[in-house]
């Protein structure tokens, strides 16, 4: 049986969700600028825009997170844990790319070797309500990265926007617990076929031609390639692409301390910042944009696949859309293809300094 949720019931549905869960969904901060945020009022939820600037990873891996607090009173030292989570969470309205990215982060933070308690406490028990992407943008390339605008994998519940109503697909055990939800009704055949139509159209639209397949092997011998000499030139070294990337997960741990008390905090960090690799001695093993840009791309397309069996890119296109200088990761990927490498050789060898 295929279910549906009428948009006029959305608010009431969200209210019941919020009784039981902490609800996270896209919220507009300013015109055209949104992030995933904990919802206090259902009216704040905004499912009308495409992907929020900041990806859904922030729900489990906040940009800035207190790990514990400490205080010294006389000779007593007191530590307070901050790893607990009050309520189970629901993410509503994440696009398939962001959901696929969460599964990549699961590999990192909840892998065989290391389990990150801060990530795990938030992630375990979270229900992911995905939202199909009816209008992939021209900068999207999820099918090239093993995804798709209607990829259900990773979602517990999957919504398809039909205009006045959402088709609701319950995909996992967690999702099935919503089977009896009073706002979910049976969808009629017309609605089901409309959903299929939208799916077909969207799937055709998303770009499947970016040559990611095999890039981990192709990039094996590229470490000292002249490719990097020019690649980085226009990069100004800000953190937009890495911070807005749904899979980037580097962090830095600092103590924010006063004389007698303080807290240990972990903050997102970016391999494009010089400080990221700066050593205490003053030496920086990645002294210029050349090495830093190389790190960003090699981590995504070479080291990560070696460690986890897949690339750390889901093709969401945020890094392309928001880069202040239009550094386009698709062009970088293209240049690693056989044809691209010939082109780079032509361009670089003669003029190399």
């Amino acid at each position: 049986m295929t279910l549906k949720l009428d948009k006029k019931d959305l608010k009431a549905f969200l209210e019941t969700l919020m009784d039981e869960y902490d609800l996270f969904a896209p919220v507009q901060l300013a015109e055209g600028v949104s992030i995933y945020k904990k919802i206090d009022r259902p009216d704040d939820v905004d499912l009308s825009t495409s992907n929020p600037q900041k990806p859904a990873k922030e729900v489990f891996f906040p940009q800035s997170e207190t790990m514990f607090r400490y205080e010294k009173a006389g000779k007593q030292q007191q530590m307070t844990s901050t790893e607990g989570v009050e309520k189970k969470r629901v993410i509503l309205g994440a696009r398939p790319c962001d959901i696929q990215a969460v599964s990549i982060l699961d590999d990192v933070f909840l892998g065989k070797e290391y389990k990150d308690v801060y990530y795990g406490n938030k992630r375990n028990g979270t229900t992911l309500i995905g939202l199909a992407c009816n209008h992939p943008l021209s900068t999207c390339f999820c099918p090239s990265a093993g995804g798709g605008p209607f990829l259900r994998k990773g979602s517990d519940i999957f919504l398809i926007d039909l205009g006045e109503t959402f088709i609701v697909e319950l995909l996992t055990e967690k999702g099935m617990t919503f089977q009896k939800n009073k706002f979910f009704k049976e969808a009629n055949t017309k609605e089901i076929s409309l959903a299929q139509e939208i799916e077909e159209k969207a799937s055709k639209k998303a770009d499947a031609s970016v040559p990611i397949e095999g890039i981990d092997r192709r990039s094996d011998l590229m470490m000292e390639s002249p490719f990097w000499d020019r690649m980085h030139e226009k990069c100004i070294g800000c953190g937009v692409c890495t911070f807005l990337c749904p899979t980037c997960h580097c962090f830095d741990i600092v103590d924010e301390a006063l004389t007698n008390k303080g807290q240990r905090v972990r903050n997102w960090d970016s391999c494009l910042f010089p400080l990221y690799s700066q050593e205490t001695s003053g030496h920086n093993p990645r002294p210029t944009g050349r090495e830093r840009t190389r790190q960003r791309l090699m981590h995504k397309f070479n080291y990560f696949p070696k460690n986890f069996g897949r690339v750390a890119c889901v093709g969401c296109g945020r890094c392309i859309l928001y880069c202040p200088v239009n550094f386009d990761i698709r062009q970088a990927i293209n240049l690693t293809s056989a044809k691209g490498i010939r082109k780079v050789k032509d361009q670089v060898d003669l003029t190399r300094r």
Partner: protein
Amino acid sequence: MEERSKAIQDRIREKARELLLNKTVDLIIGFGEGSFPLRTTPRFIRDPEKTDRLIWNSFCENNLATYLHKFNKFKVGIVVKGCDARSVIALSLEKRFKPDQLFLMGVPCQRMVDRRKVKRAVKGEILRAFEQGDQIVVEGEEFKTILKRDDFFYPSCQVCIHRNPIQADVLVGDPVEESPLIEIHPEIQEFAKKSAEERWKYFEKESSRCIRCYACREACPMCYCAECFVDSSNPKWIEKSLSPSDLEFYHIVRAYHQTGRCTGCGACERACPMEIRLTYLTQKLNRDVKELFNYETGIDTKTLPPLSTYDMEDKQDFIK
């Protein structure tokens, strides 16, 4: 408008080729075709046969002067708008380059088009965009809309009074007529009317969106400290989290460090992925410097910025 742009583009290509062929410069920094509509991208050319990759239109929004720090060992030919040229002068006064190291190809600027504003003017994704006379034509899957170019300038471009590059080595277009001095920056004026509380609220709201990616800092040609105060760990001036006080601290100090140095190009604002609007701070500082010291950044190639020097006659009535 597009004919004028085309003529400028031809001149840029021609001049760039000549400079490279004669080895006057090692490389050219200009604009190239972007990877999606309404976008151009900084382009670096070393081969004289490839200068046809340089373009010119109303979407050349980046201030390329920010790259000069990276290439300070080379002779560089650079495409500059009015504001970019002022940045170069300001940087020269701060002794960032040797005098003969740069060749400025100055473009009398037609004011740049705000691509976010254009995007918001239509429903659906823009898949093609081009200029036609004084219009911008944007097309998507199911629409074709014609917009008036004049309605879509970047805020910083709207109020620009120095569109003609000062001290360019060559002008690659006919000078444009400068707008008369805009007596009071409309945004500042509007802001000044608000109560202190309202002003703080606005500032708080804008800075709260900051994600500390430092795109504003990196896009700004004048932000080139070897170690930015936010990155210093000894002494540590600021924490690295997203607490409101740290975000506010960063944005205030960034703005104040620009006093008498900012050209108002707006690169910081354009670079921001969260669309934080704080240029009113730097614009206000620019205005204060103009009023107190009669100094405008990047206009005079000899006089040092007022905060880099002192004079016995300097105003000091603000000291109480």
